[in-house]
């Protein structure tokens, strides 16, 4: 409970920080849709640029996600450390236990992301004049959903890798993986003459699904707000893709949890 409260406090502080650093409109007025796009990577009215400076800025926007992964990345794994034998000897159905634990991770991810966004919004409201637009509400929900799915997927992944590699290595792998997904995006400007290849690379890279300003709005409501520089990145596709990836990680996790032998008594020290 103390950890969850700490996590929510961190979400509020990071929301204020994101808003303070990235929401600074010219003229003191900003549309809600623009505010959300800026939180997901856009710079002012321009979409996130795939140049190094833009990607570094986007990486900074992912700091709250990294923090969540560090916090929640030991939720399952902690039971494999001290007292693992005494814990798992009391769990006759590991799958049911895993389902309960991942449901909590899901709720934590949603609460964390929602609080982060609300803190960013309230901070913006105190500093600037926010103009409410219908597309903004939809983008707000979309952004929250995409990031929540990303948080669940990565946090569960850290937990699962930790069972084999220890918590520090697992966190390093998952964070490194996310940076590795970002790195090839810096090559996109080289493909300006090959827009199809460029769009394909963007569509195949799951981290691009977090960048709303690269999406194309298919509905009358979203089309004006999402005028993407790349083809084929649609919000609904991103939601489905992240849902599928999340489900795949959860399913693989269920098998790992079900089958994993408790041979090493203390995962961190390696004691038998």
């Amino acid at each position: 409970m103390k950890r969850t409260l700490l996590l929510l406090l961190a979400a509020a502080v990071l929301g204020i920080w994101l808003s303070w650093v990235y929401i600074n409109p010219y003229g003191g007025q900003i549309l809600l849709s623009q505010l959300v796009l800026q939180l997901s990577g856009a710079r002012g009215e321009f979409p996130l640029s795939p140049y190094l400076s833009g990607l570094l800025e986007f990486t900074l926007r992912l700091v709250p996600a990294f923090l969540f992964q560090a916090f929640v990345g030991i939720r399952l794994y902690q039971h494999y450390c001290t007292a693992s034998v005494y814990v798992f000897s009391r769990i006759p159905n590991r799958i049911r236990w895993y389902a309960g634990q991942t449901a909590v991770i899901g709720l934590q991810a949603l609460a964390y992301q929602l609080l982060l966004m609300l803190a960013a919004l309230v901070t913006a409201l105190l500093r600037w004049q926010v103009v409410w637009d219908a597309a903004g509400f939809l983008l707000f929900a979309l952004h929250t959903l995409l990031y929540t799915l990303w948080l669940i997927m990565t946090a569960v992944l850290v937990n699962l890798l930790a069972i084999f590699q220890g918590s520090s290595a697992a966190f390093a792998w998952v964070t490194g993986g996310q940076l590795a997904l970002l790195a090839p995006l810096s090559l996109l400007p080289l493909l300006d003459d090959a827009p199809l290849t460029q769009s394909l690379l963007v569509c195949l890279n799951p981290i691009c699904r977090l960048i709303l300003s690269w999406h194309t709005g298919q509905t009358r409501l979203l089309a004006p707000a999402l005028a993407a520089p790349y083809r084929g990145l649609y919000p609904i596709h991103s939601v489905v893709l992240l849902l599928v990836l999340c489900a795949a990680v959860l399913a693989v996790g269920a098998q790992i949890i079900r089958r994993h032998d408790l041979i090493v008594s203390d995962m961190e020290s390696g004691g038998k």
Partner: protein
Amino acid sequence: MLLSANHITKKIRGKTILQDISLQLEGGNVYGFVGRNGSGKTMLFRALSGLMAVSSGSVSIDGQVLRKDVSVLPSLGIVLENVGLYPDQTGMENLQYLARLRGLIGPDDIRTALVRVGLEPEDKRTYRKYSLGMKQRLAIAQAIMEKPDVIMLDEPTNGLDEDGVQLIRQLILEEKQRGALILLASHNKEDIRLLADHLFRIESGVISQEEVS
């Protein structure tokens, strides 16, 4: 209650840890297991409890196959060597946390278990500050607190003073009288002589039955 091992073999990275072990163990008995360090006693407990899958063969409890019908023995208390508890919690807090996982018992049952092993339920010291003997007593308390059908004790008298040894021996006999199936691995010949109804020797993963002397 009948715990059966049917030709179980466990190999880890090509090395055979347990070899073609078959056992029929009934409730209300104490089964002693002896053997040198690394002979496979602890691995056998892990396999019989369901904490570790076997490479071939099967373990079942009253017809329910472990790792298939249930992940672990449904009513199990276990103590293994070198398995600690949460260092920043008191003994009571540690047991309360573990008890919540099954939700079968309340604070009074936990206090009773602590008193039975000679620990003070209101002791405010954290596990980190416990002596080796107190840690061992606490581990035994967590194993018996829910009155499990099967109790596996790996070197339960390790680190205990003479009074502690007597207390734990008495406790094991009480659990046996309750009807629990008790598996006891010990290097202490006196523990085995006084407590075991049946004796098995394990050498390099191979098991054989011996007479209790």
